[in-house]
């Protein structure tokens, strides 16, 4: 097996339970984003653009979708003879198998995979974030500093520091103290969950961590503090640019809406840093006579005959005559029927909104509905049909399981 300088281990097992029905059949990294992408495309494209050609993708929750999405890795130039992408689900041994115990355990269970390439450095990544980053610069930084571990960091608002691992650094960016999800933070530099380790050190620390029965086998909680306790040099690599965890319905909706600004912080059409994605061989979008498209993103194979304002319309989605889609996200293959209304909603893959249905409309005076999303975002499950004329009140999250309960009263 050919030696590689860098092997990336991409943690993509996240269940994304705060995304609710959007991740019922999908791991979080496989959730569609930005008109034609899936969340994991950003990290995989960062690898491709940074010249990293050996990537292990650690999956566990609903691995089949991700497995078939990544396939042989050709969109990200990872269909290589030597290296390339390997999807690494938890391994069932003769006497059974179980899920990875934590991020560190996931990598520990795949030390053999890394060993095959005998790398200098191992890059630990998460498949959950939307950002563009040149990892090769971070590795250069790591090498230059002579660090044991380098952690990518980004300043976050002080009031959000409790959600992150934050670190205090000296003038040289050396980490002085690391706090995991602190109540009172000493710094607002948050870990992005992107680590560079020297391979030998990583192996040593993961083996020690695994041997420690009290450890929860997590990089942030256990491994990084252990390295720091040993007095080894850990550096913070400051990142500038757009970075967003899209782990909730609100943040997923917001991050999509961020792309619709006149000058978005995250540019998708930068020819020097393309975001690669699985291609579906669809024709260019067709914007028909009488349509009205404003402040929106539309992908290949979509067909718009109605009104689309401030929305993201994915690959192969369609909006019929007289329909109105506003402040919404139509995931791949969604069909919005004639005169239907979709407002501030996320409609998941291949769902059909039949003629005249109304999604995300205000509750009528006295109408009893269970508001799940306080920001008023309505979420519709994938692969269902919203019957003609049905009304779905804003802020509700609709799973087909709830369907039979109240279709009548919702049809206006």
């Amino acid at each position, binding site marked *: 097996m050919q030696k590689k300088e860098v092997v990336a281990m991409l943690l993509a097992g996240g269940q994304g339970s705060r995304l609710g029905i959007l991740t019922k059949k999908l791991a979080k990294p496989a959730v569609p984003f930005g*008109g034609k992408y899936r969340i994991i495309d950003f990290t995989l494209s960062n690898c491709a653009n940074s010249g990293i050609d050996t990537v292990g993708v650690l999956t566990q929750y609903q691995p089949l979708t991700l497995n078939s999405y990544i396939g042989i890795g050709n*969109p990200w130039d990872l269909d290589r003879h030597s290296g390339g992408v390997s999807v690494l689900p938890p391994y069932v041994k003769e006497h059974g198998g179980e899920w990875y115990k934590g991020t560190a355990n996931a990598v520990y269970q795949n030390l053999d995979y890394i060993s095959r390439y005998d790398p200098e450095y191992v890059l630990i990544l998460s498949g959950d974030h939307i950002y563009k980053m040149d990892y090769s610069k971070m590795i250069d930084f790591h090498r230059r500093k002579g660090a044991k571990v380098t952690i990518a960091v980004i300043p976050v608002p002080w009031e959000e520091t409790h959600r992150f691992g934050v670190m205090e650094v000296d003038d040289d960016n050396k980490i002085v103290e690391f706090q995991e999800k602190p109540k009172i933070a000493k710094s607002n530099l948050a870990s992005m969950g992107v680590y560079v380790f020297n391979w030998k050190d990583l192996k040593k620390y993961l083996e020690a961590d695994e041997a420690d029965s009290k450890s929860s086998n997590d990089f942030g909680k256990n491994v990084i503090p252990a390295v720091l306790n040993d007095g080894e040099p850990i550096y913070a690599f400051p990142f500038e640019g757009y970075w967003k965890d899209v782990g909730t319905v609100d943040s997923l909706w917001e991050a999509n809406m961020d792309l619709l600004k006149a000058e978005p912080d995250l540019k998708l*059409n930068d020819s020097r840093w393309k975001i690669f994605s699985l291609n579906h061989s669809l024709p260019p979008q067709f914007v028909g006579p009488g349509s009205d498209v404003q402040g929106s993103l539309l992908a290949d194979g979509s067909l718009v005959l109605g009104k689309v304002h401030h929305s993201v319309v994915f690959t192969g989605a369609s909006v019929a005559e007289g329909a109105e889609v506003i402040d919404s996200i139509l995931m791949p293959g969604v069909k919005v029927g004639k005169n239907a209304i979709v407002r501030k909603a996320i409609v998941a893959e291949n769902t059909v909104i039949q003629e005249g249905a109304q999604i995300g409309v205000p509750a009528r005076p006295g109408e009893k509905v269970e508001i799940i999303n306080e920001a008023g975002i309505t979420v519709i499950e994938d692969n269902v049909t919203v019957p003609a004329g049905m009304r779905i009140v804003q802020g509700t999250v609709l799973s087909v399981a709830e369907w039979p309960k109240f279709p009548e009263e919702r049809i206006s």
Partner: protein
Amino acid sequence: MRNLFGVIDLADSTEGLGELTSHRALGAVPIGGRYRLIDFTLSNMVNAGIRNVGILLMDRFGPLLDHIKDGKEWDLDRQRDGMFLLVPPSEGETGYTTPGNIPNLQHNRMYLKKSRQDYALVCGSNVVANIDLKKAYQFHLEKKADVTLIYNRTCTLDENPPYTSVATDENGRVVDIALNPQQCTSCKILLNMYILSKDLLLNLVDHCNSRQKRDLFADGIMPRLNDLKIYGYEHEGYVGVVNSLRTYYKHSMELLEPKVWQELFFAHGQINTKVKHEAPVRYLEGSKVTNSLIATGCTIQGTVENSILFRGVHVGPGVVIKDSILMQKAELGAGVVLQNVILDKDVTISAGKKLTGDPSFPLVIEKLAKL
């Protein structure tokens, strides 16, 4: 279909396409926002299960090579079978740009001979259609034909010269073939696409070559109308044959009919093309787009009507584009107005210019031009 291989002849005449073919073979002409003409034929073949395709190169094939590479996008990058680029004989031997496909077929005789399939589908690269070639092949086998010519019925012949028409009897057997007739009674127009056995193909190529004939169809097949069992198979769907600037423009604009769009791109499988990983189209506030095809990587702030925009075109505020085709990366200054215009790739139009062509004679601006 494992017994059929494909031969795509890039030696189609490019007369009448002007600047669009000055540096590229006909099959490499961009069409439909993200495709090249050859994509339709290649995809039709692959969708029908053909796994071995030879491409007879002629001059100006650089852009084509760059587009098809080794056929990966069509799943033709294979250890067995796959895509083969058939290079013509070098200048010294028979002349490099001589018209006619016989010298090239003869030069690549070993490829034809070694192909493991018994039947060949020979065709050009300029037909825009989504054809179920499986059916045509089954027709060929059922009729026990020597040659099956694929045709399409059309009543607008006067708009489509040059063409070749056929007449068939009640069994579908071809009883007459006319090359570029001024009058045509049958309305059955050949798509320059035919099926024959490999053995017959090899015989015809050898026969023509040894008699200094240059064209497989006109010199090899036509004269043997009575002697070979030649059948006609009708493809009933949409067909656009691009053989002039006018037909290029006409068939491009027909893609704006939702019925045509639907049939062409979804009927019997997808049309594949080179992937460029462009971002979704951004429509900013104030954009007015109607009845248009817009490829990824575009940004729209102005007005676009009845037009086709290829990848990476930026339509700034105040720009008005009507009945036009803008190829990849056109750059338009503020206030540019275009009507009935075709911009080839990488054209720059400076602010304030107004260009107007005619529907029957669209204004073509050549690649890389700066106006």
